[in-house]
C-alpha cells in the first residue's frame, strides 16, 4: 500500500475514521517514475495535514515535506519530488491500519490493505 492510497481511505461505516493509523511490520522504498503533472494534480486532492501526520508517525520515512503546501506548488520541483517520494515510493508491504474511532484493525498483506 502506498501512502497516496492511505490518504484516500477511511474506516468504513464510521464518521470520523480518518486518517487511519499505520502499524508497520515491513516497509519498502521502491523507485517510481516522476510525473510532475500528476503529482501537482494530486495536491488538490490530498488531505495534506493527514499526510503530514502519517509521515511523522512513520519514523523510517524522512520528513522532507514542508508544514504547508507552497503557494506555487505546481512550479516547485523540490516540493513535488519530495511529495512524489512520500506518495508513490513508500510501500507498506505488511502491517495493519487502525481506525482512530473504533480501534478496529485492518490487515495489510503483500501490499494490499483489506478494508472488509
Amino acid at each position, binding site marked *: *500500500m*502506498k501512502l*497516496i*492510497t492511505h*490518504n*484516500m*481511505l*477511511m*474506516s*468504513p*461505516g464510521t*464518521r*470520523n475514521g*480518518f486518517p487511519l493509523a499505520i502499524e508497520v511490520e515491513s516497509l519498502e522504498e521502491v523507485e*517510481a*517514475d516522476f*510525473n510532475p*503533472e*500528476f503529482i501537482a*494534480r*494530486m495536491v*488538490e*486532492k490530498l*488531505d495534506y495535514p493527514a499526510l503530514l501526520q502519517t509521515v511523522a508517525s512513520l519514523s523510517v520515512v524522512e520528513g522532507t515535506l514542508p508544514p504547508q503546501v507552497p503557494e506555487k506548488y505546481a512550479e516547485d520541483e523540490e516540493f513535488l519530488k519530495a511529495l512524489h517520494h512520500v506518495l*508513490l515510493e513508500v510501500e507498506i508491504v505488511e502491517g495493519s491500519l487502525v481506525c482512530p474511532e473504533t480501534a478496529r484493525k485492518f490487515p495489510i498483506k503483500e501490499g*494490499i*490493505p*483489506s*478494508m*472488509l
Partner: protein
Amino acid sequence: MQLLLTAHNVPARKIASELRRLMLSLSPSTPCLLEERDGCVHLHASIHSIAQLRQTTLPDRVYAVLLTVPAEQLPNTDAEIIDEVKRLVCDAVDWQSVFEAVGELSPQSADRRPASVGVTAKRAGKRFSSIPSQALAGSIGAALSKHFGCRVDLRSPELDVHASLNDDRLLLLHPLLRRPSTYESKTSVGLHPHVAWAMVKCAAQLSCPSLHSLHPLLRALPHAALPLIHAQIPPPRCLMSFSPSASIVVDPMCGSGSFLLELVSGWPSVLAMGSDASASQVALARRNRAALPASSASRLQLFEADSCRHPFRRGAADAVVTDLPFGKQHGSLAENASLYPSAVSSIADILRPGGCCVLLTNESNLQLLIESIRATHKQAILYSSAFESNNLKSAAEPGSSERPGPLRLICRRQVPLGFMTGWIVVARRESGDADTSAPQLDEVGAEFDYPQDSVSKNDDEGHLSEDGAVVRRFLWESQSGRASWDSQRKASRLPMEPACLLTHV
C-alpha cells in the same frame, strides 16, 4: 519493398484505409499499392517511407516480406523442399534492403550486420504435413547462420525470421516495427477493452469542460444543432486528455481491473483506485497491473473492500466507473435486489459534488439500477428535511456538512455484450448549490431516441427528468458509433518502435 502489417482485433480493411490516407498525404501523386489478404495488409513502399508508418494507429506489427513462394512452385519430396528453402533464403532474399530498412528505422543499426539469427516456423495444412515446423526452422537457421557467419540465438536474435509454410505458400517475414507494451496480450480481463475504454472515456469527458462551455460560438448555437456539430468536429487531442477535475477515478467492484488498466494507460495524470470484496479478484487485478509499464502501474492502486460500505474518503472521487454484477457469473438476481441500492448509495457517498459515475449493467438489472439511482435522491430529501427540522442539533455536529449527495440520472446507452444486452448508465452527484460545473445531458449524449421535449428539462435549474434520456451515441463518438470504439481507443496508443537492432560491425 514489400511489407506486411498486422493488428489485434482490427479488420484488414480498416488498416488498409488508414494506410491509404497516410500514403496519400505523403506522396499524393504516387498510387498506393496495397492488398488485403488473410486478415493482413500487404503494402509496397519505398525503404525511406517505412519510418512514416510509425504514425499509424491501428497496426501492431510491421514486417518486411523476405520471400513468398507459391506452394505449386516448391519441389515434391521433403528433402528437396528443405534444400530449396535453404537455397532461397540465402540467394533469393534481398538482405541488403532489409538491413537498409532496419538502419532507416534505428540509425545505430545502419551499416551493421547481424550478430545472431533466430528462426520460428509454423507449418500448417495437408500437403507439407510430413515436414515438422521445428525441422523447417532448424534448417533455415543453420543456412542463415552459415551465410552471415553469425551465431544462433533463439531468445533474442538480431535477425528474427518468421517462416510459415501451408498449402498455399511459403512465406518468410522479418519484423521491422512493433507496438510497445500491448498489454492486452499479457492481461486477462472480463470486459472487451474497447467497452471499458468507452466507459472510461465517458467519465473523463464528463469531468472536463465541454466543447460548448469552452467555445462561446458553440454555446450560441441552438441546442438541437449541437449533436450534429460534435459529430463533425472531432474533439481536439488536447481536450481528450485535458481534464483538470478528473484526477481520481474509483472502481468499487474492479474484478480483474478492466477499467483501471484503461484509465492509467490512456490518461497519464489519473489515479485509478480499484477495490473488490473478493481477494482472488484483487489478486487477478494485481497480476494484470504487473503487465503495465512502471509509469502506469504506479498510478493503479488496489485494496479489498465491500462495495456497499466503501472505505473511500467521502466526496474524494472525481468519477466512479464500474461494472455491476449481472447476477449470472457473479451473484444472483435476488442478491442484486439488495446489492444495487446499497452499492449505488455508497457510490453517491464517495463522489464529489458534480462528479460522475458511469455504470454498466444488463437489461434484466436496468430497472433495478435506475430505481437505485432514484432512491439516492429520495434519501437525500428525507435527510435534508430531517436536517432542516432539527438543524440546531445537527449543525453542531462536526460531520453535518457531509450530506449524502443524491445521484441524478443523465442518460443511458444500450451496448450489446456478446449474447446479452448491456446498458451504460451515466449519473452525476448533485450538490446542494446551483452547480454550473456539473455535466448536463448536452455534454454527454447525441441522437436522442426520444424527441427533445420528452427529456423534459426544467429550464430554471437545468435539471433533467428522473429517468434520464436514452441516447444512441455519446457525444465523443463518431457517426459509426460502437464500430469505431476500438479504432478511437487505439488512436491514443504509443507509436510503434523498431522491432530489431543490429549491433555487429
